């Protein structure tokens, strides 16, 4: 499904990842561990097409997205979903507007149906008209997750999505997210520094160590 080959990343003029290779199967959940500055977030952002890098290629569902560290397909055309560390919900849009942002090409009634389904999936049914600042951290996190899932992306990328939640919430939500990802059969990569979280959520866990990916 996803294949990343020969990826090299520089961070503050130092090579932190050198020749990384990663293959994911359809529906597989992969967790990427690493210390801060180890290049794990940059790897994710390269897959998303946000930052260029020195060397590397990305192929998704048989389509070449990036080659030689340069992006061939722009982020908006990649069908890649991403959950950011601080959720990045648009503060001026309601929950409905946020979640339907990526599916605005659908007829309005379909959008409504889809958003309502997704909201019930994460236990937030009826929250369509709320604004992000009216939601708790955990709720925002869940909205951000279903916003990314709404267009049914080929792959979901999560950059430390649980880091700003308290411990109790975190565990519960991690399990819930795993369940949702499995239900929707979404291929995903989770970037985290928390080994427990990685083990709970992912099918497979890797760690960036000495500039290389090692499976744990």
């Amino acid at each position: 499904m996803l294949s990343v080959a020969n990826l090299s990343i520089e961070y503050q003029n130092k090579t932190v990842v050198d020749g990384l290779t990663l293959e994911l199967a359809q529906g597989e959940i992969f967790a990427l561990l690493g210390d801060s500055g180890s290049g794990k977030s940059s790897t994710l952002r390269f897959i998303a097409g946000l930052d260029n890098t020195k060397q590397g290629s990305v192929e998704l569902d048989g389509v070449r997205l990036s080659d030689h560290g340069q992006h061939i397909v722009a982020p908006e055309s990649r069908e890649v979903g991403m959950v950011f560390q601080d959720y990045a919900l648009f503060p001026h849009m309601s929950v409905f507007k946020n979640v339907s942002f990526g599916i605005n090409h659908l007829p309005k009634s379909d959008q409504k149906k889809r958003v309502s389904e997704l909201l019930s999936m994460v236990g937030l049914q009826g929250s369509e008209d709320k604004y992000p600042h009216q939601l708790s951290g955990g709720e925002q996190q869940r909205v951000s997750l279903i916003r990314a899932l709404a267009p049914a992306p080929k792959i979901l990328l999560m950059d430390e999505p649980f880091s700003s939640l308290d411990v109790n919430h975190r565990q519960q939500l991690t399990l819930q997210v795993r369940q949702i990802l499995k239900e929707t059969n979404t291929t995903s990569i989770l970037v985290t520094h928390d080994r427990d979280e990685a083990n709970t959520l992912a099918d497979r866990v890797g760690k960036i160590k000495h500039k290389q990916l090692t499976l744990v």
Partner: protein
Amino acid sequence: MEKHCFKSKIWISIVALLVAMPIFVVAFSWALPEHELWAHFSENILSDLISSTLILLLGVGVGVTLLGTVLAYLVVMVEFPGRKWLEWALFLPFAIPAYVLAFVYLGVFDYSGYAQVWMREVLGLPGFDIRAGSWAIILTFVLVFYPYVYMMTRASFKRQKVSMIEAGKLLGASPIRVFFKISLPLARPAAAAGLLVTLMETLADFGVVSLFNYDTFTTAIYSAWGDFRSIEVAAQLASLLVLVAFFLIYFEKKARGQAKYYSADVTNKKPYHATGVIAWLISLFVFGVFMLSFAMPMLQLVIWGWSSVADEWSAKYIDLITSTSILTITAALITVALATVLALPGRCKQASIWLKSVIRLATLGYALPGSVMAVGLLYGINQVSLINIHFGGESINHIIYGSIALLLFAYVSRFMAIAYSSIEASAQQIKPVYTQSARLLGASRMRLVWQVYLPMMTPGILAGGLLVAVDVMKELPATYLLRPFGWDTLAIQVYELSAEGLYERAAVPALMMVIFGSILMLIFQRLDKKSSKGL
């Protein structure tokens, strides 16, 4: 992506270069040197003018920074009696044109003004020449221009997390230390932006300095033009002003440094509650500034206006108000629209030194005195007419001369900096992660702009638009020179009457301007409250 950049480069360049047209005209004046007049100026007056200008800039700069930031800090961080309405009342001096404030102050505090008469006759103090030296004019400018710094630092203080201040408190820092060590450094970019606007206004001012008969660099510009009939030397001198503005902008950028100020949540919780005597002292101070900069001059205008409104009021005022409103609103909308084009976040802009430079160029017009700007435009149009473009059988300059388009052009060129700095500040607060998530959700550039950027920039766009509107309403020299028949404004009426010493009658249109401006500030207040809730 390459293609996308090419297109946006073309667009931004066209807008920016058009807006910067008067700057080019002024710069081209160097092609016509005039040695004799330069010799006279540099030998006899320039050194004095430069030092008096520097003194003025220094005094006004220090003054507005201190007053503006302290007021903003008090109003945002401290709870004291009357805080709520004073927070908004402190914006009101924006509505008073600088020259109106100057003539009121002189009327009250000059040797023959009743404040000094009272001092001499009742207190027995010796009289003094208030216009001697530079302290009085500095004080006047500070009271007129502090709202720029106040406005920008207030917004910045509002974004500071209360928890941060509380952390400082718990570490044992006094309120004053918290101000200097935590809040002020964080508000530095905002203060610098306000300071920049103030200094450029001061540089370009002619009304206040001529009432005080204080010589600045603009005096030399007017002397070259008015006394020696040399528009070339006037333009050359003006281009030096632009150069100074350029350096000011450069230093402001430096002062901002790498500081990117993304918005935190706006809360209305006050970390400090003043009580007892201190609370009343703070109230007294803030109220005093309001009195001096707004209430007292207003009262004077009302007294003057009351005695003359019967003589002065006529149907003509309907026309004056109509044309003032149309010019003000149209100019503000056009300026804001163009400034938004220039300020929209974009990948191409970040990478392109060319784009950054043309945008800078487009904001330099603020340092040009209005009349120089106007003549620059007329000159530019004259050059165009040499190419002799014909338009529907009529030569193009025949259409442009004395048309409202030329005047609007001048307003846009002159006030672009105001709109741009406000809108750009709000664009800077859009975290890159919003762009990224919108793009990953498949949004085109169009959707990104319309659904993400513009709504998030709305507070800055509104603030910029209102500031431009107030400035256009107050603008005099360019309006006086470029307006078409039948487009007299309230500012022109004020000038015509006060130039003849008819202050009582001039108070009538002046009051109308203040009311008009106050309404605009009130609208601003409502929108600001609304938008800070939404974001």
